[in-house]
């Protein structure tokens, strides 16, 4: 009978070996798009390692940054440097409202009910009965951190949309602008 600890360590070892293979393929690969995909695989495996090493908060932050945003940025850079133009539908978002709402929700409930409320906590507090729960049926969601991370992801994504719009300016226009400045 295999023990739970051994199973955890087995998953860790398998994840480590898979990340080793993915890193090797990333560095050796000549096609940069394939290299980015292997790098995303390595990031996914690192997320599993974070979760197994009892760091669920890090896993929550690491998934959108390293599996979503970072390969997107590198892929756009590859597209630009290989001169294949792509269409971009930019969509701004007011996701910062989500952060405000998360920060204010507990305060508003506390003001209405007259109880103590807590903000910015990932675990229950003694003197404050009102707050966002840290745990939903034995799964840690880290209280406000979960909603902060979700809103931050959307806010950073909308900011990156602006970056992508800058990156999607055609190269000829940029070059003529740069050379025009150089002649003046």
């Amino acid at each position: 009978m295999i023990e739970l600890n051994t199973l955890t360590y087995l998953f860790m070892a398998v994840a480590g070996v898979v990340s080793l293979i993915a890193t090797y393929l990333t560095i050796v690969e000549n096609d940069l798009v394939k290299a980015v995909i292997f790098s995303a695989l390595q990031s996914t495996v690192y997320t599993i390692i974070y979760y197994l090493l009892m760091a669920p908060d890090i896993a929550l932050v690491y998934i959108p940054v390293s599996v979503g945003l970072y390969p997107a940025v590198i892929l756009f850079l590859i597209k630009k440097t290989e001169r294949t133009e792509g269409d971009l539908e930019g969509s701004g978002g007011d996701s910062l409202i989500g952060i405000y709402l998360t920060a204010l929700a507990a305060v508003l409930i506390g003001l209405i009910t007259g109880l103590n409320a807590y903000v910015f906590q990932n675990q229950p507090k003694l003197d404050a009965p009102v707050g966002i729960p840290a745990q939903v049926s034995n799964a840690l969601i880290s209280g406000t951190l979960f909603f902060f991370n979700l809103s931050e992801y959307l806010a950073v994504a909308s900011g990156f949309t602006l970056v992508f719009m800058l990156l999607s300016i055609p190269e000829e226009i940029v070059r003529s602008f740069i050379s025009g400045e150089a002649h003046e």
Partner: protein
Amino acid sequence: MNELNVFLFNTLLFSLFFNAGISLYGIFARPSLIKKIIALTIFSDTANVLAIVVGYRTWPSPEQSPIPPVITTTNPTTEDIARFASQAVDPLPQALVLTAIVIGLAVTLFLVFLTLQVYRLYGTTDVRRVAKLRG
């Protein structure tokens, strides 16, 4: 069974160190600037995972598994706090790594724009050809 656990954990550690070595090779030896950025990201991620590994607690007895550093009870008793202190992993590396991930994203974006500007000015992202250009 204990030797098997140690072997499996060492496998993870050796994989991480080899990852760091391979990504350092990618940073120094590969010619493409984009490949250098990818390798730098892998290296920083590996350093983050190593920091988390340092904070991981591997020494509890086999019937006690480590838990995340979060108290989930509203009114913790003394036994709860003692059990938490004897089982929870170190939260300090996790706080540091949380900051390092976000800062690493900003640094990556800066390097992406530098690479794009190099391509706009020199027409290539190969450092061997950039080094041969003059003016």
